């Protein structure tokens, strides 16, 4: 899936009442902090230094 497709899906959900778009953060660190402090959340990051407080799944392509 390409980034523009994700944007389209979120736009459609957010502005037609069908669902809720993800929370947007500005840096990978903010993303990690948000994932740690939000129950049930998931997020994608490029690399990771501290894996202790989250469950991590590595994806290879």
């Amino acid at each position, binding site marked *: 899936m390409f980034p523009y497709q994700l944007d389209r899906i979120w736009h459609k959900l957010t502005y037609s009442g069908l669902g809720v778009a993800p929370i947007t953060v500005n840096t990978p660190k903010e993303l990690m902090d948000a994932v740690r402090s939000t129950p049930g959340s998931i997020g994608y*990051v490029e690399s990771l230094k501290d894996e202790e407080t989250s469950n991590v799944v590595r*994806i290879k392509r």
Partner: protein
Amino acid sequence: MLLELKGKSVSMLMRKLFFVLVFVALSLLAINVKAAEQDFQFHGFIAQGLIDVNGSDFVNDDGDLSTKLTEIGFNASYQINDSLRLAGQVVYLNGGNRYEEGVRVDYALLDWSVYDSSNWQTNLYFGRFKNNHWLYSSSRDIPFARPSIILPQSAYFDGFRDIAVGADGVAMKISHNNDDYGNFDFNFSYGTSPVSDKQAEILLSDFAQGKAKQDSDIQASLYWQPSFSPWRFGISYLDSDFSYQANNKGDLFFDADFSFIFYTANALFEGEMWEFSGEVHQSHFTTKGFYHPQHDGTPISQGMYLQSRYKVTNELTLLARYERFYNDKTDKTGKKLEEQTGGLIPARFGYHKDLTLGFSYDFSNNLRLRLEYHWLQGAGRLTPVVLPNSQINDKSNWQLWALQLMYWF
């Protein structure tokens, strides 16, 4: 809950060979202030444009350059608990003659997540919901979420907008993800739409003095995306009944029952640079009464469009589209229409063709400029529909260009 990195950093990240997926267990019970804030979300958009139509009353009667291309929306969503959510959106629209100008409650609904597993999701929506059955029906008023400023009028006729955009009632969405066969989405909706006096005038002409109302609207659609495929296919069905009660004090028309059956098939290809989409549709429009008490007719109309978009860069996207529509598939030139009405409705009102070229440019991830040019033939998708204005719409060939700047948050 999914957290997304803002802007281009996402596209950069998405292309990396290695991803790391991070998640915390669903069983975490800690009450979190941040999470509570996230239960409440506000979003909105504002778009203003210029539109110039030569040779028809599509936007205005005098044919001058118009600023009647305004779309403003504001929405809120509140997650009550794990399975219930409230959502609503108010929009202000001004499209000149295309539809009624003013503020509308676009949707106002209770979303109940009935069942949610890794492969199945079922949601029920109660209240005023948007039509989610056609390729662009739920995003037709969202300037940045539709492919062009003016959508293909054969399927997304602005004259029908207020009736087709959604309904008051109940809707259902079932999604299924299957590793072998791909993703399936089934949508069903039942409800009615209020028909305003202005909407009746747009459809029927201001000679109609009576009251029109929608009695029922049933719609269903099915979408299928094969596993890991850039293609998505869909079909939809609509069955709607209307009635018209003539005004006893000198109405030009008679009591009537209308039935509108509309079915579509669509395909969408989304590649990295290229995108292709198309919809074909047919409708059976039965009118009993109206013109005279014994009138009973069911013309079958047909339409289609093919569209392509090409992403030149992350900012610049080009658009090309071709569209055809016939009010009566047995009368594609409209000659029969002209003969049957004794010349009152000229042949050009029997069809509509549109060739569109355009582009959009993204200044940032929430500010876009769009420009497009339409070469049109025929007056079959101009308002009013039933008693067309053949004095203003006196040309078979007409053109329009439009420019729109849009911002969203």
